[in-house]
């Protein structure tokens, strides 16, 4: 029920941030997050950043996916 797109924060303004997705920029509200810094990746939904993306977790998940070790045993 939820289209959410990851974007990179390139500018932090008062209550909003400018995020970039594949070369396209959009200003979104940051009021649903505690804190946002330039360089963070955030999940964008309906004009709002609703979560910060944990890059370390992303790397871990991708590692898990690429190894497929746990799945191979089935």
């Amino acid at each position, binding site marked *: *029920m*939820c289209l959410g797109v990851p974007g990179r924060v390139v500018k932090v303004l008062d209550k909003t941030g400018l995020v970039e997705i594949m070369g396209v920029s959009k200003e979104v509200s940051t009021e649903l997050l505690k804190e946002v810094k330039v360089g963070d990746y955030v*999940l964008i939904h309906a*004009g709002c950043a609703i979560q910060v993306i944990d890059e370390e977790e992303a790397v871990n998940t991708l590692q898990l*996916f690429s190894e497929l070790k746990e799945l191979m045993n*089935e």
Partner: protein
Amino acid sequence: MNNFIDDFRNSEIARKMGSMLSSYRGRPVTIMEVCGTHTMAIFRYGIRALLPDGIRLISGPGCPVCVTPSYYVHAAVTLSQRDDVIITTFGDMMRIPATAGDGSRGESLLSRKAQGNDIRIVYSPLDSLKIAAENPGKKVVFLSVGFETTVPVIALSVLKANEAGLDNFSVLSANKTVPEALKVLSVDSEIGVDGYLYPGHVSAIIGTGFYDEIAERYGIPGIVAGFEPLDVMHAIISLASNINNKKIVVENQYCRVVTREGNPVALEKMNEVFEARDAVWRGIGCIPGSGLQVRDKYSKHDAWKVFDLRQEAGNEPKGCLCGEVLKGKRTPKDCGLFGKACTPENPVGSCMVSSEGTCAAYYKYGGI
């Protein structure tokens, strides 16, 4: 890491997972994908075509537009005809036909727009605030549909309207929450769910604690999954495996965005503006405590109160199986209207015309 999108669409890994999926030889399992965005992803990435006989995927009621009761669109269409009202809405709502109290098919917002009523598609409820500020002489109504992913954004817009004194802004809420619906689905033996694919973005807001209750109380395991092809396939394969091995657990496989506690700032705003109430889910019926209404404190931004509108359940269109489809009890192809009287150009029920509707997905992507 690239852009967090393409990395999770890596074709080499995708193909490996795809062939793992199609070569599944375990016990037959029934998995419900709760969320309409998962339904679409499964079709869009050709995952449905790769499903082995032993894995049955049924689509749940996680399409907020599909489960919106028919009286809602009727109310919106009626409001749109007032000269002093500007309707603002997500694109998803535009083509849904209203159903009159007697079950007969009414107009859609798109056809009202063609007849000159002021109906505007917005990408965000926050955009409606701008429209309200620019049109002080008009009442701007935002059609508030969506689950917990969207509700905090809508709550934010109500709070900002209140702060800025934008008294001409109100929301017509049909918002619902997922947890209570899950309970109803879990006890329905006719559906027979073995495992849940949990909605990644709703979970980003509400966290994952609630799903443990579903596992403990009903013995149904689940996986919280993202929406890229790698996320979805990995979740389906793991879930099938867990079901086979009787591992009644909840796994979070979308850790880059979902934490156990969710998003406390978003939850706080949601609870500040909205409170729980009973809600009618189209096709399912009334699920206690599964709806959201604007609290009295913000009643001047509650369109139901501002326009004194009634919320009366009417009849469903004759022959429409949306209800059964939404519960995963039937597939679109079981419906006598599917593809004949009910098509995307001429929809009868909302499952066909909603961008996430199961029938729309089957019609658009199926047929292979």
